[in-house]
């Protein structure tokens, strides 16, 4: 069941460069629980896509299965969506991307979807540096199947039923860094001011851009003792820097404190500005990121922000050396090997 929002648009609402209002980036009304972190992330996605002047139909929304994976229905109604099977969004996105390198691919997944059944595909999509944005809506539990611990649940986190998780949690940020992912970030569904620019930068990044967004499940994992509850996250969050993303062409108006900031220019000319950087951390050095996270963990901090970016990122199509024209645009004319070729081939088998 899905409910459509009334679509009368206020003509006075601001229009972005490609002619769309923010409303045009919305989807159908969410059927998630009131207060679910995932809905806030959807809102940030809407905001980010609107702000970077992305034509909605040039983005493809990909997901797996779970409450989180339902969200693509709740944003960007003018985009095609692919709600695949549990844990396999990365492979479908890989195929889609191979077919058309010109679109923007936005994948969303849950922690069950990515860290359990989907672990293999997560690792390999990172390894291939697929040009996509991968948003993990991380609530430490299986929302849709009613709250079981997921593999990202932290050791010792208390579930709603009162049991303590005996297993070490998997940190997909750490894993992505170890795998050499080219853009790794962490954020919180409740921190739109950080999340929106992160999503913008991720969408612009040419390669695999991973954002682990802690996104509390109000129904099953927002209790006392849970390390993924709103309260806990708010108390332990620690941003690595202030962060802004400026698309190319746009005038730069960011000011940052002398000596503590850094700017990273992306391939397409966009720029990422980081201000008030943590000590001992350089966002373009992945080992410093690993160390920064570890340091945070020892102190009980949830370190957020853009943690690592590889400005030299070579995305999959570069590695495969594919033609500039998207493969799905090639026709008989481009693909037919040519007259006489088959005869010559036949001859090699005589």
């Amino acid at each position: 069941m899905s409910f459509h929002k009334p679509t009368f648009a206020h003509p006075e609402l601001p229009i972005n460069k490609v002619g769309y209002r923010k409303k045009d980036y919305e989807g159908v009304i969410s059927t998630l629980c009131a207060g679910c972190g995932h809905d806030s992330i959807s809102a940030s996605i809407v905001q980010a896509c609107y702000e970077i002047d992305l034509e909605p139909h040039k983005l493809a929304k990909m997901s797996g299965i779970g409450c989180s994976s339902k969200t693509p229905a709740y944003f960007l109604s003018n985009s095609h969506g692919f709600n695949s099977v549990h844990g396999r969004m990365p492979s479908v996105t890989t195929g889609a991307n191979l077919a058309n390198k010109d679109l923007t691919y936005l994948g969303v997944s849950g922690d069950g979807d990515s860290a359990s059944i989907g672990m293999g595909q997560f690792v390999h999509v990172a390894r291939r540096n697929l040009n996509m944005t991968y948003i993990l809506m991380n609530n430490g539990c299986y929302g849709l199947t009613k709250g079981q611990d997921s593999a990202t649940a932290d050791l010792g986190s208390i579930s709603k039923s009162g049991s303590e998780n005996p297993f070490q949690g998997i940190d997909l940020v750490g894993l992505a860094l170890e795998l050499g992912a080219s853009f790794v970030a962490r954020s919180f569904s409740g921190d739109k001011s950080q999340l929106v620019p992160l999503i913008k930068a991720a969408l612009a990044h040419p390669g695999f851009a991973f954002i682990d967004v802690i996104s509390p499940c109000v129904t099953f994992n927002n209790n006392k003792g849970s390390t993924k509850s709103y309260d806990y996250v708010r108390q332990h969050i620690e941003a690595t820097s202030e962060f802004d993303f400026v698309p190319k062409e746009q005038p730069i108006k960011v000011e940052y404190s002398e000596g503590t900031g850094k700017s990273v220019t992306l391939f397409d000319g966009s720029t990422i500005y980081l201000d008030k950087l943590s000590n001992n951390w350089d966002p373009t050095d992945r080992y410093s990121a690993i160390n920064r996270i570890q340091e945070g963990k020892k102190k009980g901090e949830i370190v957020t922000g853009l943690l690592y970016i590889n400005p030299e990122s070579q995305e999959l199509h570069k590695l495969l050396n594919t033609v500039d024209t998207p493969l799905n645009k090639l026709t008989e004319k481009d693909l037919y090997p040519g007259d006489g070729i088959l005869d010559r081939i036949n001859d090699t088998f005589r």
Partner: protein
Amino acid sequence: MPSSRINDLVIRFANVNGTGSASANGLFAKAIFRMGIPVSPKNIFPSNIQGLPTWYEVRVNEKGYLARKDGIDVLVGVNPQTLRRDIDSISSGGYFVYDSSKKLHEEYYRDDVTMLGIPMMKISMDHYEVPRHQQLFKNIIYLGAIAALLDVELEVIKELIAEQFATKEKLIPPNYKALDLGYEYAQNSFECPLKVRVERRDLIGDKILIEGNEATALGTIYGGATVLTWYPITPSTSIAKAFESYAKKFRIDSATGKNKFAIVQAEDELAAIGMVLGGTWNGARSFTATSGAGISLMNEFIGYAYYAEVPCFLINVQRGGPSTGMPTRTQQGDVLFCAYASHGDTRHILLFPSTPTECFEMGALGLDLADRFQTVVFMMSDLDLGMNEHLTEPLHWDKNRKYDRGKVLSAKDFEDPDLEWARYLDVDGDGITYRTIPATHPTKGSYFTRGSSHNEYARYSESGEDYVRLVDRIARKIDTAKKHVPGAELYQKISSSPLGMIFYGTTTYAAIEAMDIFESNGIAIDSMRIRGFPFDEDVVKFIQEHETVFVVEQNKDGQMRTLLINELEINPAVLVPILNYNGYPISAYNINTQIDQHLSINNLMKEVL
């Protein structure tokens, strides 16, 4: 006394794998081909890289029968591990050619077999120094000897060697030398040729000798596939290899040197098929090839593609199952599993090639059908077809042929103000609905693809009525495919016998031969070859027109028979299973024996004669 036969023999080479024998053996088969005589080689190899027994069996038959034949006339035995069984496997009156560098123990002698000892290794060591060369040229030495024994034209083999080493010319003379050494040794030591021998003919025409997997890969190249995602598994791997090598030859943009294709070796089969779905959903012709275990792993996505209607062309090169089973043996053991793959009520389109030429055609057609029907299309090849060379019609492509992309709407279509589009609305009554490729139009045509139940507008729905409408329409769509899959091939204009025989894929060679044998014994059996599923009307008619129909297949449970019964509501009593499932290609003799047995038991013989 061996009986005298020309161009009608079976020769088997018993080797150790990893010793370079494959190349020498291949030269033998190719030489026969070049001499204008129909030939059919079969590789019987272990699931292992080096040091285990491997056999190469070649049937030479001027009537053109290409099935594996029981009984070995000449056995070239150069594997000490299998000496006993190799010698035992020779037909009475046959020949055993062996390496007599070491004396053969007496216990191996057979009175009814002519033992032809050739000191292959000794000759090789006398003429070559490097141990690896001694090993390799030993193979060419026995090839030379066989040429003398069977009267294979030495010039033809030399021509083949010259072609093979065209770019490494300095390898030609030592090979020639080895060949001559073997040839001369045999000439000098034995009465050459033997009574079973070959003789030049002109029976090949423009046919080619090619492996099914090679032809399949070419089919997908011509069919316009640009995305191949796969995971290595015997016996399908060589499809990916061949696709890559042809793509690298014919699909490089000459201006930029860039690839007009993308090949991804996926992390496993689940990912491989997921990528195919993503690729076709986004409008690029994509496919994967796998076998056995891969199909099992792909089941979840297969059901998804069926239900969400995403095109998916999937090549299954079948091997011996269940489980890992016999990974280097052939079977038609996944027919039922593929027809109804995945949980819930499903039905999938199947194509059954029986020659490399059909592998080529169906390799292209499968891509068309997947796009047209927006569903999973399986091409059901097998190890025998895929990994052995077969004598077959040359590959042909109509240069004006267009890819059938199926019902895909363009931006222009959306300019039509009358267009009332819904992704899953059956406007044409054939069950096939119109789809859009992402980014077709800024504000129209987007939709949500999902494996959960949905209505015509691709919206999530839990309504029982929406569900029933959806699954009924999909079933109707698959029914429509009956007219689009390759029709059954009938081997007679009209049915003329109460007995019929149905076969498909690689049972075809043996079945045709069996049919001829019956005919020569005065028993007429009408025959039909199935080429596609769901079955067309001809299949129904054929069965209706016969009292008893034999269904010949290479699996244990008579899977095609089950499919016929279930889909066509046939009385099982009519369909008699003729099965072979030991992993070796079925022979005509086997079919004849089984049918004979059935006929005599049922006293049908009389009636038919």
